[in-house]
């Protein structure tokens, strides 16, 4: 997030797109509810009538995968109505003239033909956001899990840049991160393109730094992403070390994924349960869980915080860092001589400019949001206040693209996937927490009541749902949360493996899968 969580109570206009925040980040959503109670206006764009949509002053029910068109239409209106921030554009950005030219063709009427959202509602949304003193954008995977995830994010940046809604209290572009330490995993350099602290592996300065630090030559080019690696399993990838990810259930196209992992010569999985992924491993190493492990995590607002052990490990379970060190030592690798987590985190801080002012003791009270470039620095709750890291904000002349697969005679229904309040990811944790079953005993496919009738399905009965990749059986549930022609299910339940169906395409830059769009066919069982 560009802005801190406390800022969520501050905007005049809130624009939520592709975020089911009341279910996926419920505590963050309380900030928005307070803002709304205070008088802020809420615009929600989502294909489904989610909880946020019910709270909203303006709901834009766009067709799945049409976000770029909606956002181009909004940019058109903001420019047309003269709601741009000339000073901000002049002083902080580059490329506006070409962008202004570019968006002249993308009218709200055009956007209506793509998104299904009435042009007048697109205009209202644009006028509200464009006129805001403090306009804030919040998004989640509904923006990124598309083949055009990058264009979607760029389109949001365009809106914020043209209206100057960046770098001030109650504004910003705010992606909500989904896992307790997914931010920290990226910060720590577990990325094929970046060393720790987002230092590009292709930058000669960083290459020299890490060659000295790690005492060896490291490839000068980017590595491959996980998605590519899974595609190359058995071909050029022959061994994997997976820490704490149930790849088989969380990733798209389960059959492809299972085939990939089975074709490895050597698979080592570190986890706290024998997950579906661990069951395929040659070696399974039991890790200590949350509540048993001392360490550091970084939240969605870049706040670096201590996790602390409260109980002893289960059985012989060991911390992940210890396990990795032991394997590394057996292979004769240097720099894995650790007996506690503190010096590991301190090393991460030493090699990462964004963490340079931090160490194990300094984060004890959760006070710091990175970047913290030196010990006297108070941290950075809000990014981009004076300037952007690359100098100026760049407008992107994006184009709308159709999803990888669109509905057809064979697969006439849009399936979109996501999460539910009461379950988390593949339920390895919430599925084992007593009482959760009382609230959410099983998965069901959310279908508009009128569609149920049309497709000759009955509420509560099972149906067969097929995509170009496979079929699953799933119970249907009538609800007006789903619009006509679009159905929804979560991927959380192992007995309803929705990710057997997904995986139609990937964003070419981020390799994020288009989990939010999958044409399917429904048939009675």
């Amino acid at each position, binding site marked *: 997030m560009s802005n801190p969580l406390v800022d969520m109570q501050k905007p005049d206009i809130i624009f939520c797109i592709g975020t089911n925040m009341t279910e996926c980040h419920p505590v963050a959503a309380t900030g928005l509810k307070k803002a709304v109670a205070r008088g802020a206006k809420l615009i929600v764009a989502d294909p489904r009538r989610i909880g946020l949509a019910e709270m909203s002053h303006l709901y834009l029910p766009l067709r799945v995968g049409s976000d770029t068109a909606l956002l181009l239409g909004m940019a058109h209106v903001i420019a047309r109505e003269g709601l741009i921030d000339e000073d901000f554009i002049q002083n902080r950005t580059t490329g506006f003239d070409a962008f202004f030219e570019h968006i002249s063709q993308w009218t709200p009427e055009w956007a209506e033909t793509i998104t299904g959202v009435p042009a007048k509602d697109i205009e209202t949304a644009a006028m509200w956001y464009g006129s805001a003193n403090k306009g804030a954008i919040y998004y989640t995977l509904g923006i990124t899990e598309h083949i055009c995830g990058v264009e979607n994010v760029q389109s949001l940046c365009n809106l914020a840049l043209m209206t100057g809604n960046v770098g001030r209290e109650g504004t910003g572009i705010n992606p909500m991160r*989904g896992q307790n330490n997914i931010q920290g995993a*990226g910060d720590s350099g577990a990325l094929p393109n970046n060393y720790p602290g987002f230092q590009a592996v292709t930058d000669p300065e960083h290459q020299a730094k890490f060659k000295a630090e790690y005492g060896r030559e490291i490839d000068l080019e*980017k590595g491959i992403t996980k998605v590519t690696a899974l595609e190359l399993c058995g071909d050029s*990838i022959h061994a994997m070390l997976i820490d704490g990810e149930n790849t088989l259930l969380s990733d798209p196209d389960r059959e492809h994924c299972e085939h990939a992992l089975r074709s490895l010569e*050597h698979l080592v999985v570190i*986890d706290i349960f024998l997950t579906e992924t*661990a069951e395929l491993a040659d070696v399974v*190493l039991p890790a200590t869980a949350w509540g048993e492990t001392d360490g550091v995590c970084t939240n969605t607002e870049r706040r670096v915080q201590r996790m602390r052990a*409260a109980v002893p490990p289960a059985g012989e379970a060991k911390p992940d860092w210890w396990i990795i060190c032991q394997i590394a030592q*057996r292979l004769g690798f240097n720099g894995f001589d650790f007996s506690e987590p503190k010096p590991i985190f301190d090393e991460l801080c030493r090699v990462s400019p964004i963490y340079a002012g931090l160490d194990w003791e300094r984060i004890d009270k959760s006070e710091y949001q990175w970047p913290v470039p030196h010990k006297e620095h108070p941290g950075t709750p809000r990014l981009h206040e004076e300037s952007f890291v690359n100098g100026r904000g760049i407008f992107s002349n994006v184009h709308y693209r159709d999803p990888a697969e669109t509905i057809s005679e064979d697969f006439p229904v849009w399936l979109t996937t996501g999460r539910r309040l009461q379950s988390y990811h593949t339920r390895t944790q919430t599925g084992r927490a007593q009482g959760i079953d009382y609230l959410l005993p099983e998965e069901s496919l959310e279908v508009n009541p009128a569609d149920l009738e049309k497709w000759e399905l009955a509420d509560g009965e099972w149906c067969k749902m097929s995509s170009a990749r496979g079929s699953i059986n799933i119970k249907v549930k009538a609800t007006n949360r789903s619009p006509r022609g679009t159905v929804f299910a979560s991927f959380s339940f192992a007995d309803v493996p929705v990710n057997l169906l997904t995986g139609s395409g990937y964003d070419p830059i981020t390799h994020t899968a288009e989990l939010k769009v999958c044409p399917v066919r429904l048939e009675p069982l």
Partner: protein
Amino acid sequence: MVGAISGRDTLRFIAMKDKMEIDGVEVTFSEDETILEVAQRHQKEIPTLCYDPRLEPFGGCRLCIVELEGARNPVASCTTKATPGMIVRTSTDTIEAYRKTLLEMVVSENREVDVSPLRGYASGELATLRDKYEINGSHITGTTSGINKTDDDNPFILRDYELCISCYRCVRVCAEQEGDHAINVMNRGFHTQITTEFDGLLKDSACTFCGQCIQTCPTGALGDKKALRAADQVGDTVPEKTRTICPYCGVGCSVDVLTKNEKIVGIHPAMDGPANQGALCVKGQFAYDFVQHPDRLKTPLIRGDDGELHETTWEDALDKAADGFRKVNAEHGRHSIYGIASGRAPSEAAYLMQKFIRVGFGSNYIDNCSRA
């Protein structure tokens, strides 16, 4: 993306020009502060029951009354804004007598005052005040002011309304803090009943089971059913607390893990957590017992010649893990090995995963689980 750096918001300084007098000492205060807030900042102990600093002042319990010079009657300090020149006395014989009588009336309404600390974060507030004001029994004969909702079989929230004192903290936290408006009030006086719309089950209301009502309740009328499973082990001692961060989404709520005899018995939200300020959701509040679940992996496993996974020693498993990487590296080269780090494990794990690949194989064949 990283931008320019400024810490000016963390160092915001609120000018306090205005002055008032509390217990004979001149103090400064800022605009919008109540007498209670000013007094608490100056370490004055004013009793409260309906007060939760996260919520709008309510002024229901009247325990926080103070003497205000020029006012005919004592005023509720939680609802009275500080104004320049005010002269306030927080503890006089008259005020303390009022408070004691009020507390006697409150105590007389309840079936029991000493409740398990496992019921919730604030569940001991009434008992603490009773002890402070040395109330032993009462000359007041009250009647209970609520009827238990015994037919609510939800596994999380105990609805023991015979202990309710109608402070409305649950109603207000649900509305103001959570924005869910699931809890309502029915009837008045001794017949006051905290309930939900249509007086039904929480499951059928707007309740999201975030547990905030449990944690703000000052008497334990609302209690944590899951934590109370350990009531016999815990008794009336307060369990140990360990401050950590919730294991679920990326918001990073601070929590205190409650433990007894090396078992996790419950979770308290951290009222001073920078990301959550005391708020939690159903997962963070109640979905902690996966940690000590019997399904946990407790020993290393290796795949045997029979194709099945078998328990083994750490030495054996680590040797086999290392041997496999050594063999694949020798046969297929360093670009045949890939690492996937966890978005759930601490940063030390992710840092060492990337170091393992970069130091060990000189490649950038490392990723984490953020692409799905």
